[in-house]
């Protein structure tokens, strides 16, 4: 049986108030609150998508109880790579003691690059091409100063070890739905992404996720009420709630994994961090439907069944909630400095 053997999250300790961001730009301070994101996480000046990926991966490896050198693929999805050319995956593989006998991939598909990796890993491990894989979603998400994205774009990482051994969540089925939909993009050399405002909703987020989730449920003969936890991509807290209502999921099913309401949208780690929090709390027999989405656009829907081993390994690494609770507020100017949006001109 193939599935997730270990899971781990990382959220940096710093938070900035989204109301303060709105006030700074003379915008309506109720706007970020209407998105359901009162504050968002940001990495310190010494953090980036590689360092956050390292810590999330350490936590996933502790829970998987698998030797790093036995990992056959390190796959990271990120929109905020420290280098345009030079892989993050090789830094992570070397720092974790996985290199040199491994594949190492950096992928890009907006917020679902890491999820593409999860699909690859589940397939490659089940076919026996590799024994285990490490899949990471990590982003210090960019939002241009003054853009509405700035209210939600946050920093965080989540990692999964995929294996046939030590499984805590067995894969039942997965389905992917992809089309060319220009809802959100960043051109080569541009510092910040652009987006199609309202166009990011219906034709992009909702259409792709509804299509993927409906098909997955249909072909497994399931109804939304059969699912224990529903964890969709969460660009803000409003979209997932609307999606859940449209599909027929209840608050009891989606609120546990709605981490964007606490820390903002961590892009490639968005649904993944929600999934790590759900696994921290899940019981054997639970059915989890995780559905990452990436602009451009595509959605994956995964069905996992939680196994007995989960109870033995939950406490081998810090819980996602412990990272969410470990926080210190910084002001908007500190946020701009930490996220490299303003530079010291005198050196």
């Amino acid at each position, binding site marked *: 049986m193939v599935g997730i053997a270990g899971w781990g999250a990382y959220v940096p300790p710093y938070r900035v108030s989204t109301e303060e961001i709105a006030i700074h730009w003379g915008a309506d301070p109720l706007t970020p609150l209407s998105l359901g994101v009162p504050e968002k996480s940001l990495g310190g000046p*010494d953090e980036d998508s590689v*360092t956050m990926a390292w810590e999330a991966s350490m936590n996933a490896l502790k829970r998987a109880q698998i030797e790093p050198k036995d990992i056959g693929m390190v796959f990271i999805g990120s929109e905020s790579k420290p*280098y345009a050319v030079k892989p993050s995956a090789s*830094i992570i593989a070397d720092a974790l*003691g996985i290199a040199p006998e491994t594949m190492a991939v950096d992928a890009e598909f907006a917020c679902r690059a890491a999820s593409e990796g999860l699909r690859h890993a589940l397939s490659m491990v089940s076919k026996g091409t590799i024994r285990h894989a490490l899949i990471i979603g990590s982003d210090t998400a960019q939002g241009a100063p003054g853009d509405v994205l700035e209210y939600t774009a946050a920093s965080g990482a989540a990692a999964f070890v995929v294996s046939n051994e030590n499984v805590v969540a067995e894969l039942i089925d997965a389905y992917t739905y992809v089309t060319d939909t220009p809802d959100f993009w960043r051109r080569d050399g541009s510092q910040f992404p652009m987006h199609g405002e309202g166009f990011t909703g219906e034709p992009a987020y909702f259409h792709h996720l509804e299509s993927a989730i409906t098909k997955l449920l249909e072909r497994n003969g399931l109804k939304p009420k059969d699912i224990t936890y529903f964890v969709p991509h969460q660009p803000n807290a409003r979209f997932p709630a609307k999606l859940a209502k449209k599909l027929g999921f209840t608050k009891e099913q989606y609120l546990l994994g709605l981490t964007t309401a606490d820390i903002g949208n961590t892009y490639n780690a968005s649904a993944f961090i929600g999934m790590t929090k759900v696994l921290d709390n899940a019981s054997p027999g639970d059915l989890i439907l995780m559905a990452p989405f990436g602009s451009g656009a595509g959605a994956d829907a995964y069905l996992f069944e939680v196994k007995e081993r989960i109870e033995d390994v939950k406490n081998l690494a810090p819980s996602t909630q412990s990272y969410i609770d470990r926080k210190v507020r910084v002001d908007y100017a500190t946020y701009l400095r930490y996220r490299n949006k303003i530079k010291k001109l005198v050196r």
Partner: protein
Amino acid sequence: MEISPAHIWRNKHYRYRFEVNVCPKCGRAFRENVERCPKCGERTTRVRLPLNGKLLSWTKIVQVPDGYEDFAPMYVGLVELEDGNRVIAKLVDVLEEPKEGQEVEAVLRRIRVDGQSGLIEYALCFRPS
């Protein structure tokens, strides 16, 4: 170029994984890539140091060197690891003044950045655990 590729490559075993070369005869541990112990000539073996320890002493650097401007002020600590080895490393996530004797754990962080187009140097640093 401030940070040379060779510098990062040569130091990564220690910077990334706290691996040191230990002499099986005299027990001395070396951060550097020494194949034989400079003291007694024995062939060294690679050992990985623990990632947890306690802070023995620390200092704060406000006037930081070139390449470290983004990280000012910088804290540097002397840490005694669980196995008794002592290492000097950067302290991170310093939200309140560090205390001698406090428990610390190693995390991978950026320690130096070479302008807008040069290399980024990563290393294990310590934060309060």
